[in-house]
């Protein structure tokens, strides 16, 4: 099965009045067709920046300094705005974090979805588009009256479903879901997640699921990567990472999730805060919080490149060395 998305050595930085913030450093991952890929990490680790860069929607002060993003055979980073517009939504679409605000408050929902379809399928008639929208709504569980409604007339859950419908409207090959259920209550969250999974299987799409909630990643994804301070620290099959986490950070993430079954344990949490991304560090960026750092971790004599342990399971060298000492 070929890869629908190949990200190689991506580096992105933001220009601020205090310096360059290196939001993404040497990030590489591949997403095969029809697979779902999870990206997990704490706030500020760069996951959303990665998502934005896939659609080349990063903010004006952001700059991709090196690397490539190859989607379906084409390097998106090199594309002109004209060509990018064709890829957006038609090739890759996104369900945003805080999808509540994704809707323009003065335009009806139906019209906003139509707009997307019109852009990529200009020959469709109005009725054809209505058909399409009705099918989508069926899929996500929305009533057809929603077409004529304004965003503020819908509940949070309905808006979220509508956003998913919007993301599917042009039959993209890859959908990015950036924390789509953060603002919803657990019941709805569960429903939405199930729906996304169902749709993905039915339509044969690839999914990039971004979250800080490792439990959701476990449920939703086949492959996953853990990000910390702009780098990927561990990547591999979800089952592998959960059963056999190699990176200290991954281990701590897993241990910090409470479990309903089993004995009551004291939750472990991670001390400290992620480092500032402004100054480029050679050293392991996790070393300040690692419970057992070695001298080499902190002084930067280890390269941060990932090494492969078993089939597809990669981890950054620093922690691998820790583990094997």
């Amino acid at each position: 099965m070929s890869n629908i998305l190949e990200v190689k050595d991506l580096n992105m930085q933001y220009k601020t009045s205090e310096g360059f913030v290196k939001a993404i450093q040497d990030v590489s991952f591949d997403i095969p067709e029809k697979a779902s890929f999870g990206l997990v990490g704490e706030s500020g680790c760069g996951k959303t920046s990665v998502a934005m860069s896939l659609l080349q929607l990063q903010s004006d002060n952001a700059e991709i300094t090196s690397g490539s993003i190859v989607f379906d055979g084409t390097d998106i980073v090199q594309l002109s705005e004209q060509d990018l517009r064709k890829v957006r939504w038609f090739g890759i679409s996104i369900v945003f974090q805080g999808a509540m605000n994704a809707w323009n408050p003065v335009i009806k929902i139906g019209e906003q979805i139509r707009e997307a379809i019109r852009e990529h399928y200009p020959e469709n008639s109005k009725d054809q588009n209505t058909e399409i929208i009705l099918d989508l709504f069926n899929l996500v569980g929305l009533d057809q009256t929603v077409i004529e409604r304004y965003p503020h007339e819908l509940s949070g859950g309905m808006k979220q479903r509508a956003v998913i419908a919007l993301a599917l409207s042009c039959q993209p090959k890859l959908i990015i879901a950036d924390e789509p259920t953060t603002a919803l209550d657990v019941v709805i969250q569960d429903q939405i997640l199930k729906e996304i999974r169902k749709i993905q299987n039915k339509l044969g799409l690839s999914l990039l699921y971004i979250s800080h909630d490792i439990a959701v990643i476990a449920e939703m994804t086949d492959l996953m990567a853990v990000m910390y301070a702009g780098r990927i620290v561990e990547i591999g099959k979800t089952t592998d990472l959960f059963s056999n986490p190699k990176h200290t950070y991954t281990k701590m993430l897993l241990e910090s999730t409470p479990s309903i079954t089993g004995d009551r344990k004291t939750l472990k949490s991670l001390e400290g805060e992620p480092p500032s991304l402004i100054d480029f560090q050679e050293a392991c960026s996790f070393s300040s919080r690692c419970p057992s750092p070695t001298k080499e971790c902190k002084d930067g004599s280890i390269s941060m490149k990932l090494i492969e342990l078993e089939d597809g399971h990669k981890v950054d060298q620093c922690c691998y060395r820790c583990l094997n000492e």
Partner: protein
Amino acid sequence: MENNIIKKSKLTTFKQNFNRFKESKIGMVGLVIVIFFGFLAILQPFLFFTGMWDYSTYHPVLGYDAVPYTATVVECPKEYPTENYNTRADCPSLNEISIITLRPFMPEVEIGDKVERFRQPAPPSRSHILGTDSLGRDVFSQIMEGSQVAFFLGLLSATLSVFISTILGSIAAYFGGIVDAYLMRQSDLLLMLPSLPLLFIISAFTELKVWHLALVIGILGGLGGSVITIKSQALQVKVKPFVDLARITGGSRMNILFSHILPNVAPLAILFMVFGVTGAIASESVLSFLGLINLDMSWGLMIALSQADGYISAGFEFWWLVVPAGLSVTLLAGGFYLIGRGLDDIFNPRLRKR
């Protein structure tokens, strides 16, 4: 409750903000302009004080200087063009004078005589950078005087207006209820009144000098529409949890008002103040121009005089009477506005680059 978690000194915050302000090209342009005119305003008393200029020649209102020149008396022909002149407008030319003009005053004069005349208004020269006006007064001095008036008037009325509207707006937001309703209706009433006709009427029954005008513009501005905007801003603060927190911990009402609401409203207030200066300068100029206020000298007055004397219809021949004053009003009012825009870019985080 003291905020002592991370205490940045006020100076570094100011420096940070100033750096941000520097980034805004618009704001910097405005600042440069304002500083320039401020410099002019200070320059004049300085020049007088150090004796570089003497009062009799250079005083903007009472000074008098006339440039003497010798003119030849000519008779303007009835038909044009002739060998000396192309059109009627060319005769008499710069160093000539028509015999018809002179006859009533000097009946014995003949064509070809040379007479001593004084040129006023005089074009710019070494002693008068911007020339003199029709009464022999130095134009540059007038501009500087006008600058003083503009700054004084603008800053005074703007400060007053912002002071009033901030307090009223905060009170309206905080107390709500009847107080709010009353203040809103009062603002409505004032918004409704067309300011220019109102100022006409007020000028009709009081003699408006700079102080009075500043007061009037200030009070009218303060009670007007800006109260509504400040109130809505203050309201946003009021509903924030920390205000409730402050109340729970026992802060008195006044305390809350000052330490929480006001600082949040402050950026908006400063913005209003800067824009207020623009408005005040513009209003004063217009009123002077229409002859409704009694100032000794201001830019509006300069234009009014030029127009009354008909120099504007002469176009750019007497440019120094027409251009500097109008340009000054435009530039200074615009300068303050640009500063306001620059400040807006800093203060309004929503407008910062995505």
